[in-house]
C-alpha cells in the first residue's frame, strides 16, 4: 500500500480515526444519501469519485456535520457527533478541516489573517502567537511572501493553498477536500496537488472528492465510487482501475476521453 505512513498498521487495534455510520440525508424531499458508511484509519487517504449529483459534496458535509444527517452518526476517534449534541457541534467541526472547490477565503482579510482568524477567535490563541503560526503555515504552502495580500490579489492556486494553510493551522484530525482543483486553470492545478501530496506524505488523514485520477491512483489507499447516494464500489485504485468491468474503470476512462488526459 502506497502512502500509508508508519504507526498505523493495517488492522490496528482501536476504532478508526473517523467512522461514518449509515448516513442518510434528505434534501428538498429527495433521498440524497442512502445509508452510506465509510471509515478512515489514521494516516489513510481515500478518494470519493462519481458522477455529478451523486452526493459526494453532501457526504463530505455530513461527515463534517456542516449538514446534519437525517440518519446515522459520525464518530471521530470514537466520539459520536450525534451524542455530542447541538451545543458542541462547533467543537466537533473544529477537529475536521474542509477544503472547498471555490476556496471560500474570507474576502475582507489578508492571507495571513485568513489563516490566523480561527486560531484567534475559535481557539483563543493570543494574537502574536496566532500570527506567527499563520506565517509558519503559509511558509509550508510556499506563500510566505504573499502574507499581506487579500484574496482578490491572489491567483486561484494561491487562494487554494492559503485555504489549505488555514485549515491546517487548526491542526485537524481529518481533512476533507471537495474537488480542490476543479475551479483552477490547468496550469495552476499542479501547485495545489503538490501541497496535497505533501500532506499525504506527512501522514494527514484525508478524504478527497476529485476527478484527478492520475494523481490519486499513486497516493491513495482506496477509491470509493458513488452513484445515486450510495457507495457502490470501493477498493485499492490499482485493483479497481485494472478491472475493465468495474464501474470505476468505466467512469474514469470516460472521464479521460472527455478531458483528454491520461
Amino acid at each position: 500500500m502506497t502512502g500509508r505512513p508508519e504507526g498505523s498498521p493495517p488492522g490496528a487495534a482501536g476504532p478508526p480515526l473517523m467512522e461514518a455510520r449509515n448516513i442518510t440525508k434528505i434534501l428538498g424531499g429527495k433521498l440524497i444519501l442512502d445509508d452510506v458508511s465509510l471509515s478512515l484509519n489514521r494516516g489513510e487517504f481515500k478518494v470519493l469519485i462519481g458522477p455529478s449529483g451523486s452526493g459526494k459534496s453532501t457526504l463530505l458535509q455530513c461527515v463534517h456535520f456542516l449538514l446534519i444527517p437525517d440518519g446515522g452518526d459520525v464518530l471521530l476517534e470514537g466520539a459520536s457527533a450525534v451524542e455530542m449534541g447541538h451545543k458542541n457541534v462547533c467543537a466537533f467541526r473544529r477537529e475536521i478541516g474542509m477544503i472547498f472547490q471555490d476556496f471560500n477565503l474570507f474576502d475582507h482579510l489578508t492571507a495571513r489573517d485568513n489563516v490566523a482568524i480561527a486560531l484567534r477567535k475559535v481557539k483563543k490563541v493570543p494574537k502574536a502567537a496566532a500570527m506567527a503560526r499563520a506565517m509558519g503555515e503559509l511558509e509550508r504552502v510556499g506563500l510566505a511572501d504573499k502574507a499581506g495580500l487579500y484574496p482578490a490579489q491572489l491567483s486561484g492556486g494561491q487562494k487554494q493553498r492559503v485555504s489549505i494553510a488555514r485549515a491546517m493551522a487548526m491542526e485537524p484530525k481529518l481533512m476533507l477536500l471537495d474537488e480542490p482543483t476543479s475551479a483552477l486553470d490547468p496550469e495552476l492545478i499542479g501547485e495545489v496537488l503538490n501541497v496535497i501530496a505533501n500532506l499525504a506524505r506527512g501522514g494527514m488523514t484525508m478524504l478527497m472528492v476529485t476527478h484527478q485520477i492520475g494523481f490519486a491512483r499513486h497516493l491513495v489507499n482506496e477509491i470509493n465510487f458513488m452513484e445515486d447516494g450510495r457507495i457502490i464500489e470501493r477498493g485499492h485504485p490499482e485493483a479497481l482501475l485494472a478491472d475493465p468491468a468495474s464501474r470505476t474503470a468505466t467512469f474514469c476512462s470516460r472521464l479521460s476521453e472527455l478531458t483528454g488526459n491520461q
Partner: protein
Amino acid sequence: MDTWEFYTEKLIPALNEGLWMSVLIIVPSAALGVLIGVLAGAGRAAGPPWLRRVLDLYVSVFRGTPLVVQLTMWYYGLPGVSRFLGSILGPMGLPEFTWRFLVLSPYVASVVAFTLCSGAYQSEYIRGAILSIRKGQFQAAKSLGFTDSQTFWSITAPVAMRRALHGCGNEIIYLIKYSSLALLVTIQELTGKSNALASFYFRPLECYLLTALYYLALVSLATFFLRWLENRLRVPGMGMAKTG
C-alpha cells in the same frame, strides 16, 4: 443698514444659531438612525420569521409615507391620542404621565421622526449588505468551528459594514437636508431661521443663498468624513461602491 453690516451683524449670527440647532437635530438622528438601521437590517436579514414580518412592516410604513406627514403626526397628531388616552386612563386613577408622555416637544418630535425614517432606509442598506455575503463565507467559518456569534462578529459584521457604508453615508447626507423640515414643527433651525430673516428683512435671495452654502458646507464635511472612512476600510477586490 449697509450690506456688509447686514451680513455680519444680523444674518450670520442668526444663521449660526440655526446651524447649531440643525446640528443638535442631525447628529443624534443620524447616530440613532444608523443604530436602528443596523438592528432592523440584521433582524430582517437573519431574524426569525415573525421578527422579519414586524420589521418589514416598520420599513414599509416609514418608507412608504411622506416624512412631512410622519413629522406632523408625531408633533400635532400625538396630542390628540394623548387626550383620548387621558379620557380613559384619567378616570381610572392613573397618573398623568401615562398619557402626557405622548405630547412631544418640537425637538423630540423632530429627532424621533428623523431617526425612525432614517432607520428604515438604513436598514435597507444593512439588509442588502448582509444578504450579499456569499454562502461560502459562512460555510468556511462553520467548517473552522466558528459559533454563530463568532461568525457574526468576525465575518458578517466587518463585511456588511464595508458593503453598506456607501449607502448608509448617502442616507446621512439626505438626513442633513431633510432635517430642514423641522421648521414645520416650529423649530428655529437653519432653514427656519433663514425663513424668518428673509421675510423680516425682505432680502430672500441673500438669506437663502447663504443658507444653501451652510448646508453645502455640512454636506461637504460629512462627505469628507465618509470618504476617509471608506478609504480606511477599503479592501482590494471587495467591490465596495466608490464615492462618486
